[in-house]
């Protein structure tokens, strides 16, 4: 069956129109722009022009990446009407790849959260169960992909914001090596942790998008000046894992993990063994401090990164009564336009960086970070990749953890170490938990700059799971129309 890019794009736009009112995955849909790109590609294809591999394939972009002329909110009232005058580098690359951009997806405000409930524009719902969260912060992108509103989407992952949503929506999400994908034009949460990556329904799809957005960018000083690792070749190459050593991190798992999550993980290990891999237990003793270190470093950097939102040059402005000073306007605007979670982290970070506390908090957290990087280095001397459950539980109900920040933060306990060390990570669906019928993710971690290992292991495991489970996990998701009925 062949179809044009316009037909493909229109089909997705139609489905967004039908389904998204139930999901709230998109904050903005750019039908006109997407169809124009699609028509352009169709014309070029008809003219026999040579086109990039994903030309004409629509994509959704998390609303954290600046899109020229297209409102970019980062899920915040502060930027509700902010129209960037420039494209993020990854958006430029999507345009150069001639991929129609369907729109901008919902997210926790400034990417702070694990449920998308902290979006100023309402939560996104999980296509598997509309009463549940789709993960966060990138719940919009994962829900869009899982519900077939978009074949591909862009996410950003600071502590798990691509991988955790992928796990709880039965989709694939990759956090590349830190510096592997440009951050230029992507609204910063925590600069030393943020990384952009692909969201997809299969490992091979993720690899194709990874290849488009990856690679050096002179506008991002932390961008790695090296070719994109051979991710597509790895995702489409041999399924034989003979000779590969797969490490299981002793410190991830066990208490606090849902039975179904652990069962699916054990099964995945068996399948990996069957593919020829050797399973080895490794210890990363400092991972237990990762959460604490993360919740010092991330709010510290965020408190500084978010300082620019002062309503002076752009952003929502609140002017107090009387003749207020510039400082009073800044304070009132920030008080009005930032949500509680954002304020909580700004306060935490400001405190942690303060004179007299810096050494005890930020300084100490950076030392922990170094120790975690050493744990990874030591582990990767023994094994080629590490695996773990992506999240402790399946998707929880909307509202369940909103008043308990610590419980919310614990969703990212398995994903955070990779951000602290800058190593790449992937979550693929490993099945559904029998107790609630919701999808479960398995996480694969590789050394920095070895992203292709994620794809090789992920693709092999994905194929075996499909064989033993009789199809992709995502195919088990109920039809949204049925759920609504």
């Amino acid at each position: 069956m062949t179809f044009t890019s316009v037909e493909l794009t229109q089909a997705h736009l139609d489905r967004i129109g039908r389904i998204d009112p139930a999901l709230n995955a998109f904050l903005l849909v750019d039908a006109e722009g997407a169809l124009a790109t699609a028509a352009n590609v169709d014309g070029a294809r008809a003219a026999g022009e040579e086109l990039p591999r994903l030309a004409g394939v629509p994509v959704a972009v998390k609303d954290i990446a600046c899109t020229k002329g297209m409102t970019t909110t980062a899920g915040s009232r502060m930027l509700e009407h902010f129209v960037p005058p420039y494209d993020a580098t990854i958006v430029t690359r999507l345009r150069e790849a001639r991929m129609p951009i369907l729109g901008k997806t919902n997210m926790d405000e400034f990417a702070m959260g694990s449920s998308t409930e902290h979006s100023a524009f309402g939560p996104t719902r999980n296509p598997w169960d509309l009463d549940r969260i789709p993960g966060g912060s990138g719940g919009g992108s994962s829900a869009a992909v899982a519900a077939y509103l978009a074949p591909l989407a862009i996410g950003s992952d600071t502590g798990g914001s691509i991988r955790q949503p992928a796990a709880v929506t039965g989709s694939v999400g990759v956090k590349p090596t830190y510096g592997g994908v440009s951050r230029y034009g992507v609204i910063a949460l925590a600069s030393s942790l943020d990384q952009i990556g692909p969201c997809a329904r299969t490992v091979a799809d993720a690899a194709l998008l990874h290849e488009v957005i990856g690679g050096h960018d002179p506008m991002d000083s932390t961008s790695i000046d090296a070719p994109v690792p051979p991710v597509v070749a790895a995702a489409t190459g041999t399924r034989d894992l003979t000779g590969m050593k797969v490490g299981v991190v002793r410190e991830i798992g066990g208490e606090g993990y849902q039975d179904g999550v652990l069962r699916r993980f054990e099964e995945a290990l068996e399948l990996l063994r069957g593919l020829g891999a050797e399973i080895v237990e490794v210890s990363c003793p400092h991972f237990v401090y990762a959460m604490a270190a993360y919740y010092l470093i991330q709010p510290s950097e965020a408190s500084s990164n978010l300082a620019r939102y002062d309503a002076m040059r752009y952003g929502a402005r609140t002017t107090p009564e009387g003749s207020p000073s510039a400082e009073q306007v800044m304070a009132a605007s920030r008080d009005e336009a930032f949500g509680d979670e954002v304020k909580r982290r700004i306060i935490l970070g400001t405190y942690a960086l303060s004179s007299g506390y810096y050494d005890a908090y930020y300084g100490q957290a950076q030392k922990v970070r170094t120790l975690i990087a050493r744990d990874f280095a030591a582990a990767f001397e023994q094994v080629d990749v590490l695996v773990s459950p992506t999240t402790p539980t399946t998707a929880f109900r909307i509202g369940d953890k909103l008043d308990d920040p610590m419980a919310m933060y614990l969703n990212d306990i398995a994903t955070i170490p990779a951000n602290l060390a800058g190593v790449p990570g992937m979550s693929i669906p490993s099945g559904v938990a029998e107790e609630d019928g919701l999808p479960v993710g398995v996480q694969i971690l590789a050394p920095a700059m070895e992203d292709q290992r994620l794809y090789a292991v992920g693709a092999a495991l994905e194929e075996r799971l499909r064989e033993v489970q009789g199809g992709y996990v995502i195919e088990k998701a109920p039809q949204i129309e049925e759920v609504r009925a």
Partner: protein
Amino acid sequence: MSVTTSSQATVPFAEALTRYEPVMGLEVHVELSTATKMFCGCATEFGAEPNTQTCPVCLGLPGALPVVNGTAVESAIRIGLALNCRIAEWCRFARKNYFYPDMPKNFQTSQYDEPIAFDGWLDVEVPANEDGGPAFTFRVEIERAHMEEDTGKSTHVGGSTGRIHGAEYSVVDFNRAGIPLIEIVTKPMVGAGDRAPEVARAYVAALRDLLRALDVTHGRMEQGNIRCDANVSLMPVGSETFGTRTETKNVNSLRSVERAVRYEITRHAAVLDAGEAILQETRHWHEDTGVTTSGRPKSDADDYRYFPEPDLVPVAPSREEVERLRATLPENPAERRRRLQADWGFSDLEMRDVVNAGAVDVIEQTVAAGASPAAARKWWTGDLARRANADGVAVTDLGVTPAHIAELDGLVTGGRLNDSMARQVVDGVVAGEGTPTQVADARGLELVQDDSALQAAVDKVVGANPDIVERIRGGKVQAAGALIGQVMKEMRGQADAARARELILATVGVEG
């Protein structure tokens, strides 16, 4: 506990120095003359329309990221080397967090505990003063030189003071935001005694000359290329414990540096004499009234929540790179001046005029092109300086080159032109009529070498002025000057005045 005050009372300077020893610390911000900003590709040209030299990076738009300007880093290293500093093998930028409307990101990307250059010194020559104080050399120890970015420029409209308080509204020009700055911080300067204000001035002057010689800044204090903050404290004579300091911000001329330091010494002394304590604060300098006024309290605990800039990678200049840059350093300006003064045989006064006229380089080039040092000095600090002054341009922007002046000097010493003709030639060169020889040819300027024409003019003038001739014959030889003038007029200036004098004296029969 004593009263802390920012009182305006003062005691006479000389009296203050009998009881207190001043300690100074100078922070100098240097705007680099790189073509682009510190962290983006925007132009740095001075005087452009507001907010036309901006981009997402220097406006602090969401998502924008900085990239370090490599030329600025090279300039910083060269400045560090010229100040005899050690150059860091590895250093980072840091964020200095505080909210201010003209700072786009509400943090300044600066350096904190890892400056690019540190532990240096600069020997400063303090000239003799009018009160009989001798010239001497003072070694200023340099604590550090670090890289940072400038803020935008706020203009406060309405209200009477031009300051933010009382203004109706404020506007911000972000063209300046992100311009590369080097901040050079001295260690405490102790032991200058009553010469402290002069030392402060001489240090800033020496630093300015050094930075200009390095060609890293336009170096114009009046345009804010070089801005000075002066920290001053007093301690009782004999004490070794520093007193509480005040920081007078933005003292932006050499004269003001000297005056502001002097004023703060006299003010601190009055506060301390009254048994009160100095309030640690920033102060504003008022050029018109010559006083400082209270700014904002500043404690050492001002919390900027510094942390390493995570959007930038460390700067790690290799030792080879540092040595390559060291090889590009110019001769120290003070040493060079001493060498050239000796070579040229100028008096101290003459040399000072040359330096003040900014003519050291052109004179050196003019001498190299073949002119005598005396002639080069005469032209560049005399006729050409006056022309430049009248036109409000730099002497080097007149369109007259050192080669022109050397050629002109050759025409004068070769006897083709006299001084007045030479000035006419300069008129032509300035007007773009060509080289001095071309101008002289085109304008027909040439001393008349043929004595017969000159003798005819002398005969005519002598015949027409019998009374003057009588006075010359009566012994008043200087009266010949009046006749020379008339002869030159007859010759339309195209005569050698000395030869005219000889002929006049010979004609009236008097021995020269």
